[in-house]
């Protein structure tokens, strides 16, 4: 059963996130962690902008933020986000493939902490970050999802993920939103996951 969704994106990500988050119903009860590459000194504009799209609660990750269902957690600029069982930790370890936050780092930690409960989604982007992390999620029995490259503003990142994870579900943004909603709509509200 899905317990957490992690979404990674880079170039073109804002519009893609806008479409997915905007389509999630207010009864959506999975926690979502979003890693969007951005400039190291970009402030807290991203969570504010994304909050306008959704009735779900959007917040920027702070160290040891508890993971609560129905919340959308945005990786802060210039930190890696590590998923632990029940909470999120931050790290200023060196950038991975020139990225901090690194999608791979967050995805790998989510795969290892939540195993088959993790859902990984790779969206538009102009580099290959996220592919290794998505593979890890698939290898651990989680669900791997990739935006259809021909529908992505920049196809490089989803194409790389699709190539490394051939079993991934390759879908349009609308279909990704539908899939996520189908995993996490139901009678359970604001469920706390993990310990």
């Amino acid at each position, binding site marked *: 059963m899905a317990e957490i969704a992690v979404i990674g994106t880079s170039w073109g990500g804002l519009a893609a996130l806008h479409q997915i988050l905007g389509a999630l119903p207010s009864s959506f009860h999975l926690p979502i962690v979003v890693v969007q590459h951005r400039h190291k*000194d970009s402030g807290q504009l991203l969570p504010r902008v994304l909050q306008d799209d959704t009735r779900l609660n959007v917040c*920027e*990750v*702070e*160290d*040891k933020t508890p993971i609560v269902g129905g919340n959308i957690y945005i990786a*802060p600029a*210039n*930190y890696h986000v*590590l*998923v*632990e069982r029940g909470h999120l*930790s*931050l*790290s*200023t*370890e*060196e950038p*991975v*493939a*020139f990225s901090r936050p690194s999608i791979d*780092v967050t995805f*790998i*930690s989510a795969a*290892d*902490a939540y*195993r088959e409960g993790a859902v990984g989604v790779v969206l538009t982007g102009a*580099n*290959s970050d996220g*592919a*290794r992390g998505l593979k*890890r999620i698939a*290898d*651990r029995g989680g669900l791997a999802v990739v935006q259809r490259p021909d529908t992505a503003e920049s*196809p*490089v990142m989803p*194409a*790389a993920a699709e*190539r*490394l994870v051939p079993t991934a579900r390759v879908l349009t943004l609308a279909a990704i939103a539908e899939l996520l909603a189908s995993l996490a709509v139901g009678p359970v509200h604001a469920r706390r996951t993990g310990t």
Partner: protein
Amino acid sequence: MAVPLSDGSALEGPPVSYDPDLERVEIELLLEGVFRHYGFDFRSYAYASIRRRLWKRVEAEALSSISELQALVLHDSTAMDRLLLDLSISVTAMFRDPDFYRVFRQDVVPLLRTYPFIRIWHAGCSTGEEVYSAAIVLEEEGLLDRARIYATDINGNVLKQAKAGIFPLTRMQEYTENYIRAGGTRSFSEYYTAMYDGALFSPSLTRNTVFSQHNLVTDRSFSEFHMVFCRNVLIYFDRALQDRVHSLFYDSLVMFGVLALGSKESLRFSQYEDCYEMLHVKERIYRKVR
């Protein structure tokens, strides 16, 4: 569209076949062994991060399990030195978060100015980027001569680097931009001399600084301070250890002393939350009020 899938960096995790429960047992045993044999206590560090660093070291030593790493570091103290670097180094930059230093100059310096003599503690200073950054601000504000600065870290090797004050020349452009955005009032290049691929910072910046080994996990408070810097250090600790260190900071601050945390850290959920007021919400600068 043949983009390389990897930059060659380590996967930083175990093979998928590795049993996660067994892995946790091995990690706990290794940390217990390191503590009992060497006295370095990483047992309460945040799991996901320490796990990632341990696997990096496993890969760098061409080993295949945490248990093998345990055997190596217990029997070979030079291997322990290498692991200690992995575990204690924090990657930072001079004037990281320029806004923080701007607020430090504008809102905190005036408070510090009211003291005839200022004691400052950089807790977990690593290679010293923050120590030099803060010293530059204090120098420009005419306070450095009134200050006594203690820069501590668990790792003696990074302290030596901090004391030497040599940073990679390749980063000076970034640091200069940070410095300007932080409200620097001079030319950043005044503070260093380029030599080979290093930038040697003026030793006068640390004329009132004592670099010394101190372990936040096991050591006690050693003085009373008007300000404690501890930015992006506690993120590597688990909640229980964070609370213990907050108790150490509380005991080490004078009344109305200032505590500066990283901008994504907070005193929320800590038992000391009510003992401080926020001087600056966004930059997470607190003042002890009771």
